[in-house]
């Protein structure tokens, strides 16, 4: 027993109640009772003080932990708002070092890349999740494990993969390659989230559908997918919000930094010119707002879902 917990039982005051204790008896126990209680009472103040100190430390930790988020949002909003205007969103970018211009190409480029990635990832993710949902055994387990591992693969490695698969053989950078990289990145998150959502649909409903003679595809569509819809939307929104903010996979796949918001932030943010840094801040604010709205929306749907279930 450590020194700390010792105070509870009163160890260290020179007595024990173990099995090997030859002097154990009810009388001895009653004699010891005041000693134990006295020890516990004497140390209580110290123990409580220690608890208060640690509580203070925990509050401090929570404050330290939340500080970066507050600072990050504050600075991005403060510096980004200065450069944000309607023109900023709708005008084309200007060369580095020159002030003015907008990020219209970056917004449309990001939209195109993410849209393409979703077209690739969502159907595959749904079907793979249905596969896992209706199947038990080693293969399903292996795919699940593979999905968890792929979630942890650094995005830059996935970017290299997309480069080797779609950029080098075709000899040019393309939004398609970038979309493929993002799709690979989002796919494992989607599969796991989709399957998790499908699991909330009662098995009885699925069985009832099959017992009525409906085809598996029909049951999947009308029972599983419909029942799991809010969960599916939540999971996929979270996956999208991760994909939208990715930069590293786009480095090796997109033709120019002005074709994606995250790349634009990277190149402009690392320039020494204040006008470029301004552009980077404003773009970061647009991106941050978009991502926060997406994940806020996902959370709202999830919250509605749990409330309805209750």
């Amino acid at each position, binding site marked *: 027993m450590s020194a700390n917990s010792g105070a509870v039982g009163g160890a260290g005051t020179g007595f024990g109640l173990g099995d090997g204790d030859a002097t154990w008896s009810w009388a001895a126990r009653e004699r010891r009772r005041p000693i134990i209680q006295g020890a516990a009472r004497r140390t209580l103040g110290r123990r409580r003080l*220690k608890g208060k100190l640690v509580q203070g430390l925990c509050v401090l930790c929570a404050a330290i932990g939340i500080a970066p988020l507050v600072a*990050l949002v504050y600075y991005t909003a403060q510096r980004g708002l200065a450069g944000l205007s309607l023109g900023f969103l709708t005008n084309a970018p200007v060369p580095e070092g020159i002030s003015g211009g907008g990020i219209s190409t970056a917004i449309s480029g990001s939209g195109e890349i993410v849209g393409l990635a979703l077209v690739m990832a969502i159907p595959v993710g749904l079907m*793979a999740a249905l596969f896992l949902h209706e199947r038990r055994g080693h293969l399903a387990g292996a795919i699940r494990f593979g999905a968890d591992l792929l979630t942890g693969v650094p995005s830059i*490695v*996935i970017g290299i993969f997309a480069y080797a698969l779609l950029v080098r053989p075709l000899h040019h950078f393309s939004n398609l390659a970038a979309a493929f990289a993002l799709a690979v990145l989002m796919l494992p998150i989607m599969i796991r989230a989709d399957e998790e959502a499908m699991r909330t649909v009662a098995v009885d409903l699925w069985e009832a559908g099959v017992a009525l003679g409906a085809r598996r595809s029909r049951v999947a569509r009308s029972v599983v997918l419909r029942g799991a819809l809010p969960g599916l939307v939540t999971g996929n929104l979270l996956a999208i919000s*991760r994909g939208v903010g990715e930069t590293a996979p786009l*480095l090796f796949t997109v033709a120019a930094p002005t074709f994606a918001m995250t790349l634009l932030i*990277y190149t402009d943010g690392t320039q020494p010119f204040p006008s470029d840094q301004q552009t980077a801040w404003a773009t970061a604010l647009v991106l941050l707002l978009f991502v926060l709205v997406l994940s*806020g929306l996902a959370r709202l749907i999830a919250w509605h879902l749990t409330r309805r279930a209750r």
Partner: protein
Amino acid sequence: MTSIAGAPSAVSLKAALRRRHARRGGRSYAVLRWVAAGLFVAILLGLVVSVAIDSSQALAHSGIGFLWSGTWNPAANEYGAGILVVGTVVTTFVAMVIVVPVGLGMAAFLAELAPRWLAGPLSTAIDLLAAVPSIVVGLWALLVLSPLFANYVEPFFKAVPMLEWFFHGPAYGPSILLASVVLAVMTLPTVVALSRTALKGVALQDREAAMALGATHWQVVREVVFPGARSGIAAALTLAVGRALGESIAVAMVIGNSPAVPHSLIAPGATLGSAIVNQFAEAAPGIGTSSVIALAAVLLVLTLAVNAGGQALLRGIRPGRAAKAAT
């Protein structure tokens, strides 16, 4: 159909029905599911095989010494991942030194101390921090934190007498320390969210037993709750390490990118991820590109190993607890 040849028995009717169902859409649905699952497996294997093939040229050129050789000098055609591996491990380690106490303290606060009206919004805020794109964290660290570090934080650490071995040399701002702080900010949500879940999962009876023995709240947390949540916390930290090892773009923005032996935490350095970001565009075709991809291979192996460990820990929790509950 077999039922036409003889008298229609119940068995053959059932078989015929099943076949009809299989023909009408049932089969294409099954095929689609198999295709999706197969596609996913192909992507997984393709990723590993592609990176392995592309890095083989570099390994043939530099030999197995690529893994620990300390020189990265494209001009002299000398490539080695050694310093970058050291840089990656050092930044991740320092990040963990920061994030473990803060993250666990915060998780304990959320799970044990905070009143409900505070714990809910704080948890949501931490989840939102997880959603902030790494590039935005990097931008903030480069343009806001970096000047602060150069003017205040790094000189402060230099002035502390016992720490000068860790913190010496000129204070630029971009440094291993700043990169570690960025990694700490980015891994904090992982640590807090997973540890909090683990702490909340400790059985109420265990806490009550300790309270009945006269333990104070902190003694209960220390002697019962944290040991009970040990494997969940270990999994959280392992996954956070995996994430810190693999982060590239935010680190590349603030680490200063100098592939040299890190002699001080406020000196610039480089990690595997940051080196890939910076070297890829200017790498010479052939050996150069292949060497950069070999860095990605090293990074892939590192993160796969760490994440496999983390997942094994996470998976180990559930059966273990179920078994304990059953007895």
